[in-house]
């Protein structure tokens, strides 16, 4: 049975001058799923995320959230976001930063200690002294601070070592089992295969596929997502 769509992207186009980065893109993310957005560098994944978050405006089209036009208060209340290159203030300590951000969160006070424990971060160290992987984990903790129902993760495993990557994926599954809807982009196809139920393939600024991951593999008669993806975009090595 088809689930209820939580985020609907209808005919969204985004142009930068004459360059069309997103061309009449339509897709829907269903409530309670982990949805993977795949594409080469420059395909428009981050631009789409920025359009969803209203960090940039769409040239045409509409974005709906729970069948309502997505506006800034909804974004701030319901959506958590981890950007690709997250740069938190290096002069603050993780606990300080989370506490200050938590101060502004509406509703119940977030459990900063639990988040720090989950991310395995040293709360007494300055953020500027953190490694790339630690900053990614901090970014995820911040995205979860307001307990959003929809989480957007742009390359969440970028720069993470294998152990941390596995733990992060387990955490994503756990969040999903708690009812969170997750939209993530990644170049790590093995990771996408492990966690995502449905995927979309963005190539040359257009949507080439959207649907269940298993159907995508069947359609291309291959076992790995990477091979299927390369076939889809017409790579001769596939």
């Amino acid at each position, binding site marked *: 049975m088809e689930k209820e769509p939580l985020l609907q992207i209808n005919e969204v186009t985004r142009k930068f001058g004459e360059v069309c980065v997103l061309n009449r893109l339509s897709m829907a993310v269903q409530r309670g799923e982990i949805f993977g957005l795949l594409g080469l560098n420059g395909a428009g994944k981050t631009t789409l995320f920025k359009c969803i*978050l*209203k*960090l940039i405006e769409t040239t045409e089209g509409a974005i709906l959230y729970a069948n309502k036009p997505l506006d*800034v*208060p909804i*974004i*701030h*209340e319901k*959506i*958590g*976001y981890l*950007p690709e290159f*997250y740069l938190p*203030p290096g*002069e*603050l300590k993780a606990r*300080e*930063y989370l506490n*200050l*951000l938590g*101060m*502004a*969160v*509406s509703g119940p006070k977030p459990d900063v200690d639990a988040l720090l424990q989950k991310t395995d971060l040293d709360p007494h160290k300055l953020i500027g002294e953190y490694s790339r992987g630690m900053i990614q984990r901090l970014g995820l903790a*911040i*995205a979860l*601070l*307001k307990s959003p129902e929809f989480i957007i993760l742009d390359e969440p495993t970028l720069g993470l070592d294998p152990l941390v990557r596995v733990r992060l994926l387990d955490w994503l599954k756990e969040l999903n089992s708690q009812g969170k809807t997750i939209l993530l982009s990644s170049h790590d196809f093995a990771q996408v295969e492990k966690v995502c139920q449905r995927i979309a393939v963005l190539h040359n600024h257009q949507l080439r596929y959207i649907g269940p991951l298993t159907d995508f593999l069947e359609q291309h008669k291959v076992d790995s997502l990477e091979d299927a993806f390369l076939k889809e975009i017409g790579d001769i090595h596939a």
Partner: protein
Amino acid sequence: MRKMLAMASITFLQGFRTQTFRIVGMLFVAIMAMTYTLRILSIGHKEMMLRSFGLSIMEISSLLLIIFGCVSSFYRERESRLQAIHLTYVSAFDHVLGRLLGNCMLVGAYTLLATIGCSAVLWHEGAFSWVFIFGAWSIFLKLCIICVFCSLFANLFTSPVFASLMTVFVYFAAEYASYPLAMMRRSPSVVPEGVSRMVYHLLPNFDKIDLKYSAIHGESVATMLLIEITLYTLIYMTVVFIPAWRVFARHEH
């Protein structure tokens, strides 16, 4: 309110721990030490010289802190507003006011530390006067006005260098706006005087706010004057804050 205070606290802590804050602080200490060493050259005016240099160095170094610290702080997240997203719903008003308040707190903390340091030196030399504190307060008020201009320019212009230059320009224009007005009063034509008067009233009247002269000469300051200059600063800041907030909100949507 909580969201605005969270933004202000983050801005303050960030600014307080940056290298810029330390460098500006060291610059202040170095010039103050030099002033202290050279005090013997001001025979008969040692106290006034120490008070004058103390306040002037405090003002100039705070201005450097605004130019190199606060401008970059305003720019840091102007484009992305990521912090605001993390902070659930932070309105443009809370965002701009929080950043402004944080930077004013930063300048306030710097002025306070500099005042304590200067006062200790003055005390040691028997040159301390309570009016010195009022002089420092007037410097803080002037710098708060510069901070709000800094916020306006950071929201108006895409280049931080241009915003910094404009901030410096406003500071010096406000500092010296009373001189052309005094000169034009002697002009036979009404037009130049009218223009000078208009410019003078548009710019913050630093000549009225500034209590350095009284502080240096140890002249007492009326409580009413202190209240008036504080109120004037608050009203002026509100007037400049409104376009800064509107420009930010326009960028957002």
